[in-house]
């Protein structure tokens, strides 16, 4: 069943990718969707089995075999992978369904569905892998599909640029990941999860020295793996691609850039918890990066005007929460938030997509307003999603965000405390920008032409409804995930005994527990004041704090700095190496130089060959004299 689950989406991708004419336009949309639906049903059954304690590995075939480097194609089912399978298949199926309605006007549906299914397959390979190399296969595979889907509208220059940017920034992360994998192989002589995780304790004291500082190998290992996670999960420094990735069709943003692919980094850290647990500094780094991303992205989100970009930055910020949960050893809280986030963020994106669809591809929230009448269902869905995102009870986000913040507080470390307060502040901003969207899109006066706006077709509304139900109940249903008395994860997540953040989190004082709700309410209130009550006050604030405003609006100039410091110099470098290095030096002194020297010498010699008999006779005469004189000198013994 696991095999079928993984390979059905591939079948769908191949069918609609290679034989679009054969299966027809309708077929190219419905066949992948139905196959994904079947996979989804399987994933429910497998999740059920895994909760009952089932776990196994199916070996499919040998892949790479060289020395100790023995890699198999294998599918692994355990608690961690089955939860991911469930989330991926659920969102993927809904997005397939949604796209049938959303892409109805596009001429390239077959290609689109083929990419979607291929993505699903790659993601499934990623989560069910039994070794690091297959994980990398899925990792790059989802990156590829992300590239293809962001650049789906290939006529748009900006979409192409965004696609390349996404791929390249991810590649930077992937380099870190593959180096981390190399290091693991170098130390353990194996890349199988089980073998590696079992022998971590053997090498935990190994270290190497760099600039006279002793660095434990395992810290470096985790650090490199985490760089990979940073790339894929758009953490600060490597985050720049995610906002640009919104150039792709909206269902793609929901599936790839909110619910599944970007969470692969969190999954990686959770999967590797048996290694990360022995690397306290790396964990600290994870916490700091997560916390900084959560606040940075929320800060940038508040001034953006593109509805999808706001949600994209929000995703970035929520991923930051998941990471700092992992950083304080509350991996299960991170995974829990991953699941609830998949529901409500996919809901928000699909809702936003519904709005965009209704307004004929308008994305600027300044041109919307008062849409609740025209789009009642979408409006309700967005409200539910925003309530869940802001972490208000009893919606899903409340349970997961709460436990993350409590765990951060309960870790009783400076970094944990830092993450807690940063997280609170980010929660305030989160509530603020969420309601900014709601107020500017659905309420107030309309600021653009919305007369043609209409509620979306059923294929769009059904996924919205299902996700809304998920966004309401998944937090409550998923609570066993973070129950410390009962091991929900069946040992797939390791937490050392002295890392008690999650256990202590349940005993956090009451103010820690309710402060997220309070800050969220404050955020909503501010948004209400600024965007409903007193619009001119917003203008005043922007001018009063113009520096902060511009920082946020320009995303702290990350893109410009990278362009100036990395892209331009590299291009210049390439140009210099080519024109000065290859042509100017190697060719000039190499082949061309030798040819020139030969030619010059030949010219000199040529000028001696005059063709006049008396010149040659003269030369012969001189030669004869020289030889005879030499002979004479020898004869008389004067030499």
């Amino acid at each position, binding site marked *: 069943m696991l095999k079928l689950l993984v390979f059905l989406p591939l079948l769908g991708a191949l069918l609609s990718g290679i034989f679009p004419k054969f299966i027809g336009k309708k077929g190219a949309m419905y066949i992948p969707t139905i196959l994904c639906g079947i996979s989804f049903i399987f994933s429910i059954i497998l999740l059920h089995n895994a909760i009952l304690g089932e776990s196994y590995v199916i070996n499919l*075939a*040998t*892949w*790479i*075999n*060289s*020395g100790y*480097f023995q890699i198999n194609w294998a599918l692994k089912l355990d608690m961690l992978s089955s939860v991911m399978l469930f989330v991926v298949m659920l969102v993927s199926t809904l997005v397939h369904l949604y796209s049938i309605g959303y892409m109805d006007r596009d001429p390239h549906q077959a290609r689109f569905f083929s990419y979607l299914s291929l993505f699903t397959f790659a993601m499934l390979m990623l989560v069910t892998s039994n070794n690091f*190399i297959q994980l*990398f*296969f899925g*990792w*790059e*595979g989802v990156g*590829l599909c992300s*590239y293809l889907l962001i*650049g789906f509208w*290939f*006529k748009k*220059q900006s979409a*192409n*640029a965004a*696609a*390349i940017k996404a*791929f*390249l920034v991810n*590649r*930077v992360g*992937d*380099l870190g990941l*593959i*180096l981390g994998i*190399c*290091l693991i*192989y*170098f130390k353990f002589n194996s890349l199988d999860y089980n073998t590696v995780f079992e022998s971590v304790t053997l090498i935990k004291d190994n270290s190497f020295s760099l600039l006279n500082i002793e660095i434990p190998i395992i810290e470096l290992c985790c650090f490199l793996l985490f760089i990979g996670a940073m790339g894929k999960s758009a953490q600060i420094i490597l985050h720049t691609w995610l906002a640009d990735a919104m150039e792709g069709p909206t269902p793609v943003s929901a599936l790839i850039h909110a619910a599944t692919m970007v969470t692969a980094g969190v999954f990686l850290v959770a999967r590797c918890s048996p290694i990360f647990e022995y690397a306290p500094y790396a964990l600290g780094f994870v916490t700091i990066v997560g916390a900084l991303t959560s606040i940075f992205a929320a800060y940038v989100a508040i001034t953006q005007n593109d509805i999808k970009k706001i949600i994209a930055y929000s995703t970035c910020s929520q991923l930051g929460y998941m990471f700092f949960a992992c950083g304080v050893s509350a991996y299960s809280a991170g995974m829990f938030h991953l699941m609830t986030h998949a529901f409500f963020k996919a809901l928000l994106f699909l809702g936003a997509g519904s709005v965009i669809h209704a307004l004929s591809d308008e994305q600027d929230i300044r041109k919307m307003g008062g849409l609740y009448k025209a789009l009642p269902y979408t409006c309700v869905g967005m409200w539910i999603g925003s309530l869940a995102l802001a972490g208000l009870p009893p919606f899903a986000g409340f349970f997961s965000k709460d436990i993350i913040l409590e765990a951060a507080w309960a870790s009783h470390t400076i970094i944990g405390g830092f993450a807690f307060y940063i997280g609170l502040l980010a929660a305030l901003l989160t509530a603020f920008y969420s309601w900014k969207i709601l107020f500017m899109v659905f309420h107030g006066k309309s600021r653009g032409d919305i007369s043609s706006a209409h509620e979306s077709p059923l294929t769009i509304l059904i996924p919205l409804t299902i996700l809304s139900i998920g966004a309401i109940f998944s937090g409550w249903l998923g609570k066993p995930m973070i129950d410390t008395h009962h091991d929900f994860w069946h040992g797939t997540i390791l937490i050392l005994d002295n890392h008690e953040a999650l256990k202590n989190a349940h005993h956090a004082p009451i103010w820690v527990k309710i402060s997220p709700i309070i800050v969220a309410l404050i955020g909503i209130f501010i948004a209400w004041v600024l965007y409903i009550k007193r619009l001119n006050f917003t203008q005043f604030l922007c001018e009063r704090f113009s520096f902060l405003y511009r920082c946020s609006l320009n995303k702290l100039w990350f893109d410009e700095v990278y362009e100036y410091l990395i892209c331009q110099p*590299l*291009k210049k*470098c*390439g*140009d210099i*190496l*080519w024109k000065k*290095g*290859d042509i100017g030096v*190697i*060719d000039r002194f*190499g*082949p061309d130089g*030798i*040819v020139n020297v030969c030619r010059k010498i030949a010219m000199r010699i040529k000028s001696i060959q005059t063709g006049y008999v008396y010149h040659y006779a003269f030369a012969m005469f001189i030669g004869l004299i020289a030889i005879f004189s030499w002979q004479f000198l020898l004869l008389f013994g004067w030499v």
Partner: protein
Amino acid sequence: MTNWPILSLMVFIPLFGAFIISLIDGEEKNIVKNSKMVTLWTSMVVFILSIFLWATFPTDPGFHFIEEVNIFSSVGISYRLGVDGISMLFVVLSAFLVPICILSSWKSIKIRVKEYMILFLILESLMIGTFSALDLLLFYIFFEALLIPMFFIIGIWGGPRKVYAAFKFFLYTLAGSVLFLLAIILMAYHSGTFDIRELLSHNFSYQLQLILWPALFISFAVKTPMWPFHTWLPDAHVEAPTAGSVILAGVLLKVGGYGFIRFSIPMLPNASEYFSGFVFVLGVIAVIYASLVALMQTDMKKLIAYSSVAHMGYVIIGLFTFQQEGIDGAIIQMLSHGVVSAALFLCIGVLYDRQHSRLISDYGGVVEKMPKFSLIFMIFLLASIGLPGTSGFVGEVLVLIAAYKVNGYLALFTGLGMILGAAYMLWLYKRVIFGKVTNDKVTLLKDLDYREVCIFIPLIIGVFWIGLYPESFSIEFRDDVASLISNLDLVISINNN
């Protein structure tokens, strides 16, 4: 095992075919048609023989299918052929690419078709001879003779600067081979034989190795090509006809790498170890330098040519790690590059046949007119980037892993090529395939016809086969590489004590 001389057959059948073609006479139209058909069928027969060779190949290490005819027994020169797991795969690769080349030049070669076909068959015979020669002198003859048909192919059917390119190509490679000849004479003088099998077990003194190694190195480095001996490659590729580029990138570049595996490393182990640091530096420079230069190219063929330099940098780094993973990876990388770069040149050839331009700026928005072509181009481009699942990844990851064992920084710098490679390839793809149509000529483009699809399908199969199940290749050479490494470790450890 069979008793009939399969390797000699593979060497001589193309020559025989060339001879037949030279006899063809009559009307111009018939000459062209018949010579094409004869060439195609000859190369197909050789390819079938190579498949047979592969299928019946025993897995135990060492040379098989040995044929020996004494010529000058007094000085130890003989006609000796034989292949081990490593060279067998290169023989198959050569035999695989030639029919594809013939098909790809079916329409694009319009002048002197008969001579072109004759040269291609001679080239095939020489390539197979190079990889299966077991006699040092015989190897040298094949190795150098390869230059001649290639020289003519570039010089006669090439582009506007074909004479410059042909001479540059010839001079570079000839300069290397002069030193190689001296090294061969010296090696034979000290060991008393030209038999490669005996030379492999002969221990040259340390001083002698240090003299021999640079001579061999320059010769192979020019062929590979390694930085800074690479500048002939872009010119040769740009001017060569498509099929010429395919053979050049697909097979001739592998001769250099093959030379390192067959001669430099096993015969001169101590010197190889001594110089390995130097080779790593050149390899890393090749990877980064060539990638950066590739980024800025305006000519598609030049871009692919520089990417070849970068990929061969990986190969050389892998070989000189002296690890099982590294050498396995390098061999797979060579096979993969043989398929992928050949395919990329064919892709550019497809565009060139239609538009007669290789400039990136003349294209844009091609996907609208040529969706099939765009998909195929994407597959090969991803293989070149080294996406897992395609052939490029297997070699790259093995080389990286082996490099890590040697030195973490080596792996880091080698890995930078991964990012840069993605950058120049995707940028190329974006400018050629995506975007709006800016050039009116692009609107007239036609998608691939039946013949062209037939050319690409075997290459696509190759890409995924190597990428998803490299075991069927690596099983052939694993034990050969293992015994090579164990000998190497032994010799080096004796010397260090």
